[in-house]
């Protein structure tokens, strides 16, 4: 008897197969990496190669949720649109009722509970995305959270999701330094991590940063190229 038809059915060994399959869908998505520094948070994504006739600015994988929080995802883009929209409404709703911006953890918890609800509903399938949510709370603490299709979330210092996430995570484990004071170092770490798996270098990287008390800034292609050149020079110096 197949236990992967309806989402509401557990398999004999305790799996929710639909959730596992959703996680497979995530592994097919393009890589996203997030790094939490002391004064800056960085999200980088691998830009999908667009067809020649396609305008590439319509493919936005990094979305701002509020003035102090933004996120990137890996997996089904259409599912992500729904989650992002709900999260944006919830951020404003929080501000309306409580007169304070939502903390990063609050909005992560909200997104995770939506995802969990869809693992326990009849006739609905789980969301096929994992997300990296970063930002600053109003007391100035930076945060990075990761959510997955099952609805669980964890805080991370640096993480990657999507294609080749394992390779990128191992790279981050080797190279992450506690309390990186310099913003440039944090940004460079994220770019170096992405360069491990992205073909053809800086052209296929999209990067967004947020410094404390500032809004999200998407780096221009030239700025990314500058970092990439600096990284290559450093690499050559070492060898």
């Amino acid at each position, binding site marked *: 008897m197949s236990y992967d038809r309806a989402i509401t059915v557990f398999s004999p060994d305790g799996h929710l197969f639909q959730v596992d399959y959703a996680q497979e869908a995530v592994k097919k998505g393009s890589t996203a990496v997030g790094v939490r520094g002391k004064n800056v948070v960085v999200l980088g994504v691998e830009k999908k190669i667009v067809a020649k006739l396609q305008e590439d600015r319509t493919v936005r994988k990094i979305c701002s949720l509020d003035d102090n929080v933004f996120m990137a995802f890996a997996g089904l883009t259409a599912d992500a649109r729904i989650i992002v929209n709900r999260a*944006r409404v919830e951020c*404003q709703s929080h501000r309306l009722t409580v007169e304070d911006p939502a903390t990063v953890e609050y909005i992560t918890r909200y997104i995770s509970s939506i995802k969990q609800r869809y693992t326990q509903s009849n006739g609905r399938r789980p969301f096929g995305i994992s997300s990296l949510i970063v930002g600053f709370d109003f007391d100035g603490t930076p945060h990075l959270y990761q959510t997955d299709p099952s609805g669980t979330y964890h805080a991370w210092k640096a993480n990657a999701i999507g294609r080749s996430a394992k390779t990128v995570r191992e790279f981050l484990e080797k190279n992450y330094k506690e309390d990186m004071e310099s913003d440039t170092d944090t940004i460079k770490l994220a770019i170096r991590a992405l360069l491990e798996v992205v073909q053809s270098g800086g052209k296929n990287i999209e990067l967004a940063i947020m410094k404390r008390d500032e809004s999200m800034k998407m780096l221009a292609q030239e700025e990314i190229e500058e970092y990439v050149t600096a990284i290559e020079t450093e690499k050559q110096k070492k060898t």
Partner: protein
Amino acid sequence: MGWIEILDRAEVVTDKHHIRGSTGGGEIRRAPNLVPLRITCLPNDQDKMFKLSDKILLLCVGEAGDTVQFAEYIQKNIQLYKMRNGYELSPKAAANFTRKNLADYLRSRTPYHVNLLLAGFDETDGPGLYYMDHLSALAKAPFAAHGYGAYLTLSILDRYYRPDLTRDEAVDLLKKCIEELNKRFILNLPSFSVRLIDKEGIHDLEKLMPVGAK
């Protein structure tokens, strides 16, 4: 006896003083900082102006409670638009959005009794001032006022307003209006907070306190 009648009506009047003037370079708005209570007044820092976005201000007066509730609701929805679309609503769009909301609520069991002035600066259209009353009538105007004070100040604005006023001339026109209220209006309005909107955004100007008012 006539005097007592006026005093009784006075408690309804105070809340409704705000005037805005529109000039070529920006918009100026002001609102008195007080709360009425019978014939006494509680001076208070309550700001009747709500920042909808970097270049749009909403001045909301009327029924106590309705004002803040409605204005904050509009404010958060304008912010949501910015998050969803990556750019802010223009002042004209924001005014029409507000009008639609007010009109819909008017035709429900829970109407909002508020009078509004919306001021904003648009990159292409320049500064714009929108007058909206509690029946949700919307009009774009060069200058506007709500409340009993309007009876006195609109004539001043009519007489001295020119479409090509400079920033300083506009502030002076506002001062003229306040002087007029100080002279002829029955209630004592001791202080007014003033804001200006231009292409750089919203600026707080210094509070205007008419001479002789306590």
